[in-house]
């Protein structure tokens, strides 16, 4: 098997695991305790393998594998919930390093960074019920996400991921989130008060004006088009 084949097979295998986990633990139905119990004996080995795959994906710089391994980590964290706390110290440092090193330029890189933020915040959420030993991490991440948030353009795919991350982190930090909220509130305000620029335009107005100029007054063809300025 060539190294390219190997990467593709690893990606496919990770993707299969992600689909399997998604099907078992659909959030709409709620996470069944019996499934969590079923997964527990394999969780340590699974997390070890996924962490290894994630590190490999960074080494070979292969985007689909990075994305799928992040998906798998995120899912395992939300499924294992409190049980995930014991694996947190092994996984979080690598993820943070990945996040800080990633300087996205292309849309694909932005999407990957958004995925990394989602995974990190999911990990934070899974340990939020016993936050004492993770508070330093939460503070560091709140600051880092705050900096990222202040530099994002409104149409960046990372906006949703960062906003969700604040919710996850505030779950663990509670009142300790106050200093960060002071910095973030004006940004939230900006997003909430932004003008969506809804315009209704008479599509036949110009045609009507031309006809008017030519003394051909015909109003029956008049229609209204909604002008949609997608992505600005």
């Amino acid at each position, binding site marked *: 098997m060539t190294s390219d084949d190997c990467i593709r097979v690893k990606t496919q295998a990770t993707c299969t695991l992600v689909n399997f986990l998604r099907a078992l633990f659909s959030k709409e139905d709620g996470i069944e305790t019996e499934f969590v119990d079923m997964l527990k004996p394999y969780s340590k080995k699974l997390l070890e393998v996924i962490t290894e795959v994630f590190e490999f994906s960074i080494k070979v710089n292969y985007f689909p594998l990075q994305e799928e391994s992040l998906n798998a980590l995120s899912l395992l964290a939300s499924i294992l919930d409190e049980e995930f706390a014991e694996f947190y110290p092994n996984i979080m440092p690598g993820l943070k390093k990945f996040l800080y090193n990633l300087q996205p330029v292309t849309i694909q890189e932005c999407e990957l960074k958004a995925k990394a933020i989602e995974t990190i915040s999911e990990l934070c959420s899974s340990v939020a019920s016993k936050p004492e030993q993770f508070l330093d991490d939460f503070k560091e991440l709140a600051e880092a996400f705050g900096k990222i948030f202040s530099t994002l353009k409104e149409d960046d795919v990372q906006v949703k991921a960062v906003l969700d991350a604040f919710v996850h982190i505030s779950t663990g930090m509670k009142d300790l989130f106050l200093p960060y909220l002071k910095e973030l509130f004006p940004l*939230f305000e900006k997003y909430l008060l932004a003008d969506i620029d809804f315009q209704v335009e008479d599509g036949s107005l110009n045609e009507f004006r031309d006809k008017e100029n030519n003394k051909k007054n015909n109003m029956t063809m008049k229609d209204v088009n909604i002008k949609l300025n*997608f992505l600005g």
Partner: protein
Amino acid sequence: MKTFVLQNKIYASEVLRDICLNMGTSFSPFLSQYLQISKPLIKFMYSTKVRKYCTDSMRVSILACKTDDEMKFVIDFMLSEVLSKVCHNARTCLLKELRSDLKTLMRTFEAIKSPKVVSQELVISLYETLKLVVVSIDDFKKKVKDILKPGEEFDENDAGDLENNIEELNEINRRKIFQSLIYIKIFIYRCNGNKRKCF
């Protein structure tokens, strides 16, 4: 229309509500600012979700209050706007939204521990609103019954619509009754000259 701006507005309104819930009373320094932003968006015409989250800002703000005075500020500032939205949804038979609004009202009043928080004027407004909901729902029931008139064609789609409508109406009625009970409690409290607690 800038769709991403609308999407961000939805995210931001949801996130701010959730942060308020997560921080509890630590959020209280931001209550005034938060409500100033969310109040005009209660009737934001381009998104149901923005309207829902901003209406819910009244409930989560009550949970973030440290004192009765803060609660009174929240209620005085927000309740009339929320009731006006409830009236609009009742008149236009926006059942899903009406159901959601009544739930927000129910849960808001569940969190209020002292009847002093709601002023006389707002108690009257609450009563008028509930009256309007009763009348509007009765009108809507008549329309639903009309679907079943003999001689009319009635297919599977109509059956589905009817089932949904009945389900919505039942839920609205349940919430309406709960809200009325709260109203009656406030009324009894006021009739007794504010002598005893009623919540």
